[in-house]
């Protein structure tokens, strides 16, 4: 009896197992092969909140979701088509994320009484047997046993053999989705170069898994996902935090400045510190400060010295930086603050996602202290956004917030990475030295963009003092003069507003430039909104999508762009923040669509909420 080969446009696979089961590696290997096969894709890992929750328990489950297709793929997918469950806990933790008609591939030895107990199913009620899985097609395989058999002649330790079982799953899925094994094989050969026996074992088990699909008859279907038409070029896969690191280094390179990065570890921002600390040979200084206050302060000190000063944090750590950021607005020095947002308030849910720090970035300081704000929309866009944050900070002598989040930080996508020669130049001019008879240096004199000059120590003749007290226009001397304070407050605002002349105008991402409904988003909701809106367009709805990258100042044409629509909807992973700014600034009755579960919008969910909102307020 043959196997039918079904063509699918998109497939979502979720690999789930114990932290020890190597699901992250399995997922990324499948991802690489899939990329090479020319599909579009997105992935998202999910780590347990604890470092090492007890093996076999639900909190110990680690999973990896991959969404790939022959059409554009903009999110890691909603619920999955296939769930690989290496043990009972993995099933329990992820079942809710499987489609009604989704397939479960279960490693039966992970459902023995012990595992059932650890997963709190109860020793003797096995979900695979009690029919509780209803409509789902369940494929039970004793992966552990099969792996051991296939290596019974190997000299490897039991533990090492056990470790290879994820390759069996990988091989099996390669068969299911008609993928070649070669890239994985060469990866294994590279990785275990020094341990050929281990490499061999893994490869053997990989093939075993593939052949298992081929030979046994548990599967009635296999699937083909055709190439997507992706613009030709050289690609790599990148996470948001990786891309952020690269964006910073690129900006330092394009401005020919040393990069000084002062930070204090915090989830999910730490990887930026880790990534940069490896790049010392790119002229990067990383400083793990005693706290976030020292971190931002050290970046300000470095900026005073002429370096590109950057600091990063998340959640509570960002709240601590407010005072020092206020100082930077007064000093009018370049400063980049990376906020890799997470679910709050307070410590909140460090491993969960949220974009609820926009208002804090806008207003989280004493007094009138305007700063610029940019936000990336996809993992690879973190590169552009980080680069832009640096460019604005350096060219406009102003603190700039970069608002990424955990979903972007850990998600991956294929990236047609740029070449250095194609990157913008960032123009930095230090105030030149002058000799005694030249006239007095005016630290707070401004150019036509209201930007003061960067006057760094080591420059003769321009010795000067800056500080957090109000400054007199031009001279920069301390001033309590009422009119001067009014003037300087407005100047600091004008300087930030003027950035609008140096950023691209807001464009429509999908849909017409005029119409009934505009869905306005920012940050990591990009993929979900884009996909949802396009599907709604497909359903014949008059709807468009614009996604704001420059949140302060807003693009000059945004008001007019908005005015071309009858309704404006603002989906956010928060309780309504951008929507407040839009309503205030453009005086349109924009309506928020909000989700605060620590999770991204699902496409179907978002489509439904858009429809509901429209019907409710029309």
């Amino acid at each position, binding site marked *: 009896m043959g196997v039918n080969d079904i063509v699918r446009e998109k497939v979502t696979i979720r690999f789930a197992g114990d932290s020890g089961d190597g699901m992250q590696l399995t997922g990324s290997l499948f991802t690489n092969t899939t990329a090479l096969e020319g599909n579009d894709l997105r992935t998202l890992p999910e780590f347990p909140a604890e470092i090492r929750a007890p093996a076999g328990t639900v909190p110990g489950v680690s999973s990896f979701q991959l969404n790939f297709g022959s059409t554009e793929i903009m999110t890691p997918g909603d619920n999955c088509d296939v769930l690989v469950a290496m043990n009972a806990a993995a099933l329990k933790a992820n079942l809710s994320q499987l489609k009604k008609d989704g397939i479960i591939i279960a490693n039966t030895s992970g459902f023995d009484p012990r595992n059932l107990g650890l997963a709190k199913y109860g020793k003797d009620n096995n979900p695979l047997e009690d029919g509780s899985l209803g409509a789902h097609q369940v494929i039970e395989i004793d992966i552990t046993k099969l792996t051991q058999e296939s290596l019974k002649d190997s000299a490897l330790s039991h533990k090492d053999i056990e470790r290879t079982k994820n390759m069996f799953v990988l091989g099996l899925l390669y068969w299911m989705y008609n993928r070649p094994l070669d890239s994985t094989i060469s990866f294994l050969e590279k990785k275990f170069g020094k341990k050929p026996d281990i490499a061999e074992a893994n490869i053997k088990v990989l093939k075993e898994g593939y052949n298992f699909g081929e030979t046994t008859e548990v599967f009635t279907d296999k699937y083909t996902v055709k190439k997507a038409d992706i613009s030709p070029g050289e690609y790599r896969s990148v996470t948001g935090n990786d891309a952020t690191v690269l964006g910073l280094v690129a900006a330092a390179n394009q401005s020919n400045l040393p990069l000084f990065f002062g930070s204090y570890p915090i989830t999910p921002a730490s990887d930026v510190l880790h990534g940069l600390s490896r790049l010392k040979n790119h002229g990067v200084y990383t400083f793990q400060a005693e706290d976030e206050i020292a971190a931002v302060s050290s970046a300000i000190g470095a900026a005073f010295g002429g370096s590109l000063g950057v600091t990063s944090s998340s959640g509570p750590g960002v709240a601590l930086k407010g005072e020092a950021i206020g100082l930077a607005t007064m000093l009018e020095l370049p400063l980049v603050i990376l906020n890799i947002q997470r679910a709050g308030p307070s410590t909140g849910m460090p491993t969960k996602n949220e974009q609820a720090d926009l208002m804090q970035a806008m207003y989280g300081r004493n007094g009138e202290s305007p700063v610029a704000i940019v936000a990336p929309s996809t993992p690879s866009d973190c590169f552009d956004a980080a680069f832009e944050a640096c460019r604005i900070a350096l060219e406009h002598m102003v603190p700039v917030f970069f608002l990424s989040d955990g979903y972007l930080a850990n998600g991956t996508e294929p990236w047609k990475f740029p070449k250095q020669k194609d990157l913008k130049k960032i123009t930095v001019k230090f105030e*030149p030295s002058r*000799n005694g008879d030249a006239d007095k240096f005016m630290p707070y004199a401004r150019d036509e963009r209201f930007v003061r000059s960067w006057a760094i120590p080591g420059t003769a003749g321009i010795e000067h*003092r800056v500080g957090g007290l109000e400054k007199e226009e031009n001279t920069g001397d301390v001033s309590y003069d009422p009119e001067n304070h009014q003037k300087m407050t407005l100047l600091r605002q004008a300087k930030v507003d003027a950035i609008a002349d140096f950023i691209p105008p807001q464009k429509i991402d999908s849909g017409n430039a005029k119409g009934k409904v505009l869905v306005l988003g920012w940050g990591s909701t990009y993929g979900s909104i884009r996909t949802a809106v396009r599907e709604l367009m497909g359903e014949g709805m008059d709807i468009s999508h614009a996604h704001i990258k420059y949140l302060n100042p807003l693009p000059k044409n945004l008001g007019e762009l908005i005015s071309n629509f009858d309704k404006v909807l603002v989906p956010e992973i928060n309780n309504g923040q951008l929507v407040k700014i839009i309503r205030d600034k453009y005086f349109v009755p924009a309506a928020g669509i909000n989700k605060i579960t620590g999770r991204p919008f699902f496409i179907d969910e978002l489509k439904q909420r858009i429809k509901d909102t429209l019907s409710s307020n029309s």
Partner: protein
Amino acid sequence: MLIKTKIDEHIENGKTEPKEYSSKDFSSDQDVRWCPGCGDYTILKQVQNVMPDIGVDKKDIVFISGIGCAARFPYYMDTFGMHSIHGRAPAIATGLKTSRPELSVWIITGDGDSLSIGANHFVQLLRRNVNVNLLLFNNQIYGLTKGQYSPTAPEGSVSKSTPYGSIDHPFNPLSLSLGADGTFIARTMDRDPKHLQSMLKRANDHQGTSMLEIYQNCIVFNDGAFELFTDKKSRPREAIYLNDGEPLIFGNDNEKGIRLDGLQPKVVSLGDGKFSKDNLWIHDEKDKTKAYLLSRFFDQPEPGDENRMPRPFGVLFAVNRPCYDEGVLAQVNEVIERKGQGNLDELLRGPETWTVK
């Protein structure tokens, strides 16, 4: 750094002949705004007097302060300066010095600024041994905010915020600095300009964080806090000046000495033939245990008591330990040498790519 950046270019282009300076060259055009008679004036003057002799070009000197009366200091120095935020000067200085090791960086801070709100950055700076000079203006009071007690104010201090007397035990700034593994720990006073000058020079010459505590009189809110040590009459009995390699001698006619009886410092009189200079404790700046003992000449019996230890002034402790800023630079350069200057395109490409036709 082995990689040349725009900063290096800029410095290169701006090269000037090293100048001869007079102290006047270091006073800015701002009029000084401390209370008449404030100890800060004399400290400012001595710093301005010392600057011409440290052999650093004006353009390469930076004064960074927090907030407080003392912290207004940078405005009055015609060098680069930053009057930053309360308590954070050490962190800002760490960022500046680490990224620009060639600069001469001076931190100006008060007892509240560095030992209250800024105490964390203070101890971390000492631990890291960043090569900067920290001048701690200790007046045992919050001056700028008009007279609340500070973490160095003695127990029972009556102040605006402690009308019935303060309850908390004060910090001993030198002990705290030793506990934080500071490599240079010294004390001086506003009222002894000569000594102040020599201590400033020592602080400047030391490689690493130089912590110089300066007893400073706040004439308005805490006048006479250090009179015992600054007053010409009581000073000889109450203060002792330390000199490396020399015995611990004090008193109006140098008639008193200090010797170590086991771990116990004892005041002895040299007059009565019982003890001579040779029996005395010889000061050794490199001996941390002795520095510890000297730092404890602090919570001693009341004045008048025979065994009351005089308060030490001078360099209690000075040793060399690698500086953080040097270490960072060395590591950066070492990596550059080993791996070669990073290539951006390679970095962007990453470990693995694929091509879509």
